[in-house]
């Protein structure tokens, strides 16, 4: 028996090593990746500097399309930030066992996506150097921001979400940080010791931790729903035909979850390949995420159908005009969006073989996110181009500055994520091990079945 136990110890040590393989010293490939991503981000920073010094004339923004790629990016990245909340929060609450390897990756994605999103309001405003006017700090000028404006609701909600999701990530990481602390030496050990806050894993700590995790998951889900509803109300509160629709809040929230879950799937494929996690991110995980994606795709398609149905049936001249304009001028993009989000994705995800194939899931998840970006474009730009007064109709196309900053946002996000994976456990180590150790094979009747263990 001692040899068995010794073996078990060694197995656990190996498993820890494997799941923490991202924290190894950087390889040449990693440095190359970081440099490339850094270069793209640097180019985007240069593009932003050009915009700050010359003015928004270098962007494609014009009258009447006063909001363009920056707001599209903003909405897109806020949507992506719903990945962690959906996967981690909801799956924790529903106690879905297959959530275990994915939690950390999803929660980290949330924090970094919302951080990237928070940059875009600064990038898109005309006088970024006066952005502090938006913050309610008492000042000698007797000035105060306007809480009746949806942009201030945005500020509040995104602030709440950044702090909330960072704390959520930290909470999830606490036991894993203890594992990393125990196997590191020198200055790294000191840093991880501070971060792990003296976690020892006593039964008291675990009991409180479990309760806190449940409460946090229950709190973060309504916050996520409110954040994207508030972002959607930036549009729905206006009188712009095509924007002033009551369905915007549920529609955007479902779109965000759609985009987020697809992004988690993409991330799962990448992490699995990069850190050799084939044993932990198995086909059954992709199968289940595929089912989740299918359900959300159905919800999104239903809400979109409801919106277009209302516009078509009511046939209010201005709203119908906007819709026909969109279908006419952007027919390719509209078709791509509907195909990619609904007509290809839904039938494909109904098949088990598709869901279990890692390559196909990668393709579908990237397709979904490309189509969701297109959807944001089609929501924001055509209604602004084609408004109440025909004399002021106009078109929009992004300039090099906007495209650079879009690329820079993606590169910056990837860079932050790569840095994070280098210093922090990217697989939710403790959850995975808990899942493995709390299983036993029981002989019942004629066969041996898997049983999950729960405490008294």
């Amino acid at each position, binding site marked *: 028996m001692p040899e068995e136990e010794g073996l078990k110890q060694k197995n656990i040590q190996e498993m820890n090593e494997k799941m923490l393989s991202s924290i190894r010293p950087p390889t040449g490939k990693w440095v190359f990746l970081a440099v490339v991503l850094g270069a793209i981000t640097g180019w985007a920073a240069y593009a932003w500097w050009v915009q700050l010094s*010359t*003015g*928004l*004339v270098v962007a494609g*923004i*014009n*009258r*009447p*399309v*006063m*909001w363009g790629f920056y707001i599209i990016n903003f909405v897109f990245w806020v949507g992506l930030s719903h990945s962690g909340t959906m996967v981690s929060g909801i799956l924790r609450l529903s106690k879905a066992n297959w959530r275990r390897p994915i939690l950390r990756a999803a929660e980290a994605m949330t924090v970094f996506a919302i951080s990237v999103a928070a940059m875009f*309001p600064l990038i*898109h*405003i*005309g*006088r*970024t150097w*006066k*952005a502090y*006017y*938006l913050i309610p700090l008492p000042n000698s000028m007797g*000035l*105060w*921001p*306007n809480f*009746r*404006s*949806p*942009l*201030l609701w945005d*500020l509040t909600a995104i602030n709440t979400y950044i702090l909330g999701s960072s704390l959520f990530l930290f909470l999830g990481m606490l036991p894993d940080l203890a594992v990393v602390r125990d196997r590191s030496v020198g200055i790294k050990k000191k840093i991880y010791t501070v971060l792990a806050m003296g976690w020892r894993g006593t039964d008291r700590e675990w009991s409180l931790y479990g309760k806190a995790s449940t409460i946090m998951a229950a709190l973060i889900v309504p916050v996520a729903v409110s954040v994207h509803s508030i972002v959607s109300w*930036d549009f729905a*509160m*206006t*009188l*712009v035909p095509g924007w002033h629709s009551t369905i915007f809040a549920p529609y955007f929230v479902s779109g965000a979850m759609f985009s987020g879950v697809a992004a988690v799937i993409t991330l799962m494929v990448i992490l699995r390949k990069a850190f050799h996690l084939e044993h932990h991110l198995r086909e059954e995980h992709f199968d289940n995420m595929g089912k989740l994606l299918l359900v959300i795709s159905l919800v999104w398609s239903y809400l979109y159908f409801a919106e277009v149905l209302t516009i078509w049936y009511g046939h209010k001249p201005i709203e119908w005009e906007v819709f026909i304009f969109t279908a006419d001028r952007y027919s390719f993009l509209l078709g791509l969006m509907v195909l990619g989000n609904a007509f290809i994705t839904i039938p494909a995800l109904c098949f088990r073989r598709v869901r279990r194939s890692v390559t196909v899931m990668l393709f579908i998840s990237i397709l979904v996110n490309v189509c969701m970006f297109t959807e944001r474009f089609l929501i924001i730009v055509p209604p*602004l181009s084609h*408004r*109440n*007064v*025909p*004399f*002021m109709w*106009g*078109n929009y196309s992004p300039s090099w500055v906007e495209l650079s900053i879009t690329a820079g946002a993606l590169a910056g996000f990837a860079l932050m994520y790569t840095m994070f994976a280098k210093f922090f456990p990217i697989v939710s180590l403790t959850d995975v091990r808990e899942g493995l150790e709390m299983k036993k094979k029981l002989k019942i009747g004629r066969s041996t079945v898997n049983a999950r263990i729960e405490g008294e």
Partner: protein
Amino acid sequence: MSKSKSNYKWGMVIDLDRCTGCSACVVACQAENNVPVVGEERSAEGRMLHWLRIERYWDGEYPHVRARFIPVLCQQCDNAPCEPVCPVYASYQTPEGLNGQVYNRCVGTRYCANNCPWSVRVFNFHEPEWPKPLNDQLNPDVTVRSKGVMEKCTFCIQRINRGKMKAKEEGRLVRDDEIQPACAQTCPPGAIIFGNMADKGSFVFRLSRSSRRFRLLEDLGTEPVVIYLKGGGREGA
């Protein structure tokens, strides 16, 4: 929705029967309010900065083509949709019914421009330039705006303020013909009439009760203050 206790409620009537589309009002506005010149190329990109524009639509088929034109400026709405959406209170309702724009408070989110149904709000996409000696023509009563700031027609609030101050000094209310925005002052056929709607005897009030009256996009419920009078055989009247 301000419960106005002011003696003044500024309003404007534009008589389309008299308007010839000469665009003198556009030039006057630009001169009076230090509106930067954007240039042909930038205007084609959609960055035009005219506070007051003459909208021109073509009606009919050749050779029976008619031009329909209408000067459009900030409608100074009573329920302005551009005001609640500004996050920094750069756009607000003055007690006299004007839609105030505070240039040095604006951070340039452009939300107000999106929410204006007539798209009358303009944005400074680049730093305005007045190469010498054009800077000598700048009106010292009006701020010069920097890039990144929204601006729009203010009913020449600098002239309104000057008129009110003069009247206050003399211990009376502003007389009917005393204050005229640049566009009203310049209009050759006298199509633009400006005045105090709270004064039931004023010219603008009497004109506003014409049976030819209409307002642009009235059904949106924003209560625009600019009243147009149909005419010129262009509205079928």
